[in-house]
């Protein structure tokens, strides 16, 4: 690692940690929940952005993760960090079982199945038969962890920092996974399934795996949300949540890691701002921006930003180094 990369990494860490000490209360809570949305959208991005299999039901995996953590913490007194892998695993398992039949086929079947799943999940959580576990309509109250006594942190700060650490680890994992062979296989399936198959890629396997990993990420996001919100109930996980994640992904920019963060900021802040104007406004803004993004900036906010940076850079007078490079190329 070069000195420059280490510096960039330190800067990133500083920017991420700073809000814990610069903000507090509701603002810090909003930032925590932005980080959680970012993880959820990152999960969605793996299967929808990179592999091209549209899921409209990631809210369901979010819900499964949240309930897994809530049940383990409330009924079995597990520490919160130990519940995260279980929550992710439960989501991945359901994702695998639901996704497998749809992912064998090409076409919009996954969107259909996942939409049905997302619509059904609040009903299932409310069902009488599961009430002993899920608490039915009442939901489950979660006691959030306090910072260990040797750290001089408030609970809000602690939760924010824990979320950031988990998010950071998951982004590193995703970044690692979305490189090289795996990435090429996924993108090949998205862009030309037939050619991918001809090149020897086991389409059904890559798609199903991507879907399971994707559900794992979003499940962990749900688990974190249960801890931070301190409460889970069926109505928090309606189909609206799934659609919000989808809109966040498209508006932020599919198949882009920075895009997931832009999408999360969008999902966290825009509806609140829009709702101040009118109760219907969030729906109109979501719908209109979704359509507008698809037509006008198919690579989303991240793509637009990249384009902008590129233009700024190319307008800058060339430094000696690039000028020299240009000269060499010219000579060749």
């Amino acid at each position, binding site marked *: 690692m070069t000195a420059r990369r280490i510096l960039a990494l330190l800067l990133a860490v500083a920017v991420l940690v700073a809000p814990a000490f610069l903000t507090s209360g509701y603002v810090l809570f909003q930032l925590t929940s932005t980080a959680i949305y970012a993880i959820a959208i990152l999960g969605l991005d793996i299967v929808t952005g990179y592999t091209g299999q549209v899921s*409209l039901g990631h809210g369901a995996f979010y819900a499964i993760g949240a309930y897994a953590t809530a049940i383990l913490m409330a009924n079995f007194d597990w520490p919160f960090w130990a519940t995260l892998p279980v929550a992710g695993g439960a989501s991945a398992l359901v994702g695998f079982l639901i996704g497998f039949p749809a992912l064998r086929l090409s076409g919009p079947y996954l969107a259909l199945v996942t939409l049905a*799943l997302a*619509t059904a999940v609040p*009903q299932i959580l409310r069902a009488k038969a599961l009430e002993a576990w899920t608490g039915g309509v009442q939901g489950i109250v979660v006691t959030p962890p306090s910072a260990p006594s040797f750290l001089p942190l408030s609970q809000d700060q602690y939760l924010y920092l824990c979320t950031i650490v988990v998010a950071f680890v998951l982004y590193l994992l995703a970044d690692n996974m979305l490189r090289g062979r795996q990435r090429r296989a996924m993108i090949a399936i998205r862009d030309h399934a037939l050619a991918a198959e001809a090149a020897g890629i086991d389409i059904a396997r890559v798609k199903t795996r991507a879907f399971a990993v994707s559900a794992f990420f979003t499940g962990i996001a749900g688990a974190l949300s249960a801890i931070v919100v301190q409460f889970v109930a069926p109505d928090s996980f309606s189909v609206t949540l799934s*659609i919000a994640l989808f809109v966040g992904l498209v508006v932020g920019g599919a198949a882009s890691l920075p895009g997931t963060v832009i999408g999360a900021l969008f999902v966290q802040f825009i509806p609140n701002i829009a709702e101040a104007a009118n109760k219907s406004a969030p729906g109109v803004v979501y719908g209109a921006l979704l*359509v507008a993004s*698809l037509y006008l900036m198919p690579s989303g906010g991240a793509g637009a930003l990249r384009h902008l940076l590129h233009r700024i850079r190319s307008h800058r007078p060339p430094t000696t180094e690039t000028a020299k490079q240009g000269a060499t190329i010219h000579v060749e």
Partner: protein
Amino acid sequence: MNGFLHQVFSGLATGGVYASLALSLVMVYRATHLLNFAQGEMATFSTYIALTLTQAHVPYWIAFAITVLLSFALGIALERLLLRRMTHHTALAAVGVTIGLLLIFNALSGWLFGYTVKEFPSPFEGGGNGAVLGGLMSAHELGMVGVTLAVLAVVYAFFRFTPLGLAMRAAAGNPESSRLVGIRVGWMLALGWGLAAALGAVGGIMVAPVVFLDPNMMSGVLLYAFAGALLGGVDNPAGAVVGGFAVGVIENLGGAYVVGTDLKLTMALVIIVAVLVLRPAGLFGRVVVARV
């Protein structure tokens, strides 16, 4: 036994609505290979137009006709203005655009007509809640089935016996050759969207007296319609109709005897997954073999 029959018949009544919505989904899917996730919300919006007209003392059937015509025009306008401009036809864009429409129509319904649940008049209940067929169906349910079947018959006759219907089928089946013989394929696709929107409007108007009207009225209905379309075969219009009726009956029987009413929507999921596992092409669909 009588209770069982009652459940079957009232399942057939709601099944009729699923059938008309399933048919509109299949029509759009055949023509443009899009699953129109906004079909249900468009139908809800149309139903609000019908309600506004009847509240303005327009006679029921005239309001019905105006609504169907307006919905037809709306469907055509959407295809012409929005969908045909979709140049980069990725899977994400294909789903995203109709999800965007879903959000917009849902919000518009709430914005223009309010979020309170509204009653919707039925033309078939002249005096009281008259039960017919020996108490197996309410008058409205019978009327609903009648209207659905009549509309489906008209649609069938249109596609089977008119030159325009033939041209539309040709445009959906083989756009390139159709264009060569002089069919204006773009307009045929727009007509398909228009017809689908009109069919959806009929479904919405028919189901509204039963489930009551609010901006989210069709979100569940849409899932059953998808299940019906998938069960019948997603590229087979007749299959979609049969599938829609079947899903109505399955849903009602399951709700009454197996899972109870609070898990009814889960059955749509179960049907969809079961079809994909057991018979992905549906009961009457063709197995598509891609040419490489």
